[in-house]
């Protein structure tokens, strides 16, 4: 691999290079084209081809990037994640503001066509996510002690809890869609699926970060900075869920 030659060698004269950012960018381009082919030009065949190109490029790119650069930028990553979370939070702010405006302007709420949302399931989901925040904290604790097995065990538990959360979310969506409550039903459906979907996509990204770091971790490549940063992102996803659950389910 071309990129391995020059990585990790700081201070010598060759210009630093890495192929992975380039690879992932093309993957991202392919994904956008896939959406465009399918939804705009109704050409599902080309859409599938673009998707089939994009996903391996992105996954392969991330795997290459992580194995090449794990541990670099160590002292910086935590602060950077804080900045990134500021940007992420603004996405949720814009969605919630749109939701509040639509809700407060509406003549009555919930609008026609809405169904009663489940009350118990979101509470169980809340518990799962809060516990997962505690388990990743526990995992980090083991990492600081240098206990790799303990770390991997608690990390796996965190990942399982995250997957359980996603599973429950999928079950709930499926249930509601069968009751004919979809994004098209009314403005509540639109915001319900968008906000929970947006949050769910962040859970997926959080899990993806964990899994991307899991393989190097099992091989013994442990970077404290990486895991502190990943943990911070996970706590953020957890905190956002409180807003989702209070504003969408129990208001």
């Amino acid at each position: 691999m071309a990129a391995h030659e020059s990585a990790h060698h700081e201070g010598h004269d060759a210009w630093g290079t890495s192929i992975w950012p380039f690879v992932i960018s093309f993957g991202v381009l392919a994904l956008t084209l896939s959406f465009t082919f399918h939804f705009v030009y109704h050409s599902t065949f080309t859409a599938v081809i673009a998707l089939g190109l994009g996903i391996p490029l992105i996954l392969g790119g991330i795997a290459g990037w992580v194995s090449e650069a794990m541990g670099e930028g160590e002292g910086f990553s935590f602060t950077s994640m804080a900045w990134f979370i500021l940007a992420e939070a603004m996405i949720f702010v814009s969605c919630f503001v749109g939701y509040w405006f639509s809700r407060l302007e509406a003549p009555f709420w919930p609008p026609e066509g809405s169904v009663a949302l489940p009350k118990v399931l979101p509470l169980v989901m809340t518990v799962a996510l809060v516990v997962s925040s505690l388990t990743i904290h526990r995992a980090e604790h083991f990492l600081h002690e240098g206990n790799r097995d303990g770390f991997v065990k608690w990390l796996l538990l965190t990942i399982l809890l995250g997957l359980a959360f996603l599973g429950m979310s999928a079950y709930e969506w499926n249930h509601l869609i069968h009751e004919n409550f979809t994004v098209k039903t009314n403005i509540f459906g639109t915001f319900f699926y968008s906000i929970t979907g947006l949050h769910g996509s962040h859970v997926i990204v959080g899990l993806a970060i964990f899994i991307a770091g899991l393989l190097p971790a099992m091989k013994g490549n442990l970077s404290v900075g990486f895991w502190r940063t990943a943990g911070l992102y996970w706590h953020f996803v957890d905190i956002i869920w409180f807003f989702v659950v209070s504003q969408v389910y129990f208001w």
Partner: protein
Amino acid sequence: MSVIKEWVFTTDHKRVGILYLIGSVAAFVVAGIMALLMRAELSAIGPTLTANPTTYNVWLYAHGAIMILGFQIPALTGFAANYCIPLMIGAKDVAFPRLNAFSVWLFYMGVILALLTFVIPDPPDVLWTGYPPYSTITTGNTALYTFTVLLIGFASIIAGVNFLTTIAYMRAQGMTWNKLNFFVWSIIGSFVMQLIYVPVLGTAVLLISFDKYLGTNFFDPTIGGDVLTYQNLFWFYSHPAVYVIFLPFIGILMEILATFAKNPVFNYKVAVYGGCWGIVIISGEVWIHHLYVSGMPDWLRIGQMVTTLLISVPVGLITISMVGTLYKGSITFETPMLYGLGTLVLFLIGGLTGIPLAVTSLTVNLSETYYVVGHFHYVMAVAGTMAIFAGVYYWFPKMTGKMYSELWGKIGFWFTFVGANVIFWTMMDVGVRTGLPRRYYDFAAFPQVANEQYIMSVGAIIIAIGFTITLLNWIIGAARGPKASDNPWGSMSLEWTTVSPPPHGNWPKPPVVAEDWNPYAYTKR
């Protein structure tokens, strides 16, 4: 082969910066050609190039979207920040070099998406604003607009994360916050704004594609949605975007004015903490002035009129600093300085003509006329572009190790400066006198402005000649200009202490900043 690899896969901040420059200048050329097409169409009443209004709309979309997203923001926060920030703070690179490379390539993908406009069926025709309900019912490809914004937006978010971390942690030993170049401060402000506001734009444009392709109802009033939600979200980013462009361009100007007047920056701390941060703080509370005529409660309209007028205060502080820096300086007029002073003039005209637009009672009559177009082209388009050109000329010897042609640089400047004033002064004049509405592809209802329209089209040709000369001057200068010294302008700033062009790692040993050093330590006269 290895040369190509070292450029395409590069993670070095200087090469990433130059990639940003190449990409944004390419975008600029394309968007400039769109402007020429529109000016040709408007040079006479009736169809001249096309009889199809949608074609004109596509040009208008491509011109606006590519100029702002593909040229101005990437040239300033991409090229200028990438090239100069690590050199100015004495770092060997940015905090995350790979993330930096990812940022530039995402930007290129965004530009590729924007350029697809010219080859696909049903190109986007939603202007650069993408207002619903038109954007959700048009046959044009709104998804392409959405993804262009998302890719370039995400590129700037990761650049923002990267640079704020770099400036916080990688300054040279002894480089305290108050010794940073004004340009560094302007980039900090610019990226803080990008991090806060870009996600809101991303959300807004994503939601129009959801509405159009996935069947959601965000902006459909018949089922509980609200069109104004989009306008609010969109301008909540897109007004601060003006300051995202404005701050770095004023940063470049300040560097140039100090260097060529051989004077320290006047009122440095006031310009930084009052001017730069004042703009950052007020920037988020003024967006309603884009919606004065869209239907707003009075308390909101008048409140934001006050904040809009208030933002003249930090801008004024910066202007005082710039003028004060020139005062009693020993000024020389090399090309960068010429562009710097020209920008100052254009920016003052553009800034002062903005005041009537901020006042709710006056703006009702001026809204959606050519006056608005003239005003924001003065501030953003030509002042911004000329500041970028000033920056490229200023750091040209550092980037290439060679010298451009002073004569052609100056000739290019005068064409640009004269052409810009011919177009945009006429535009404001027409807007005030006749209320000629913007965005129309034909003006048969306004035969009295035929002469002015013709004059503006001539101005467009003049400015195009100026730009062509400038671009050729860079290309020829980079290819076979005479060798430049390491510090041809005699600047005190840190980026001029290394060799030209700087090697990977910038300095053989990390620079250490002395107690009494500052980037503008010119001897007082």
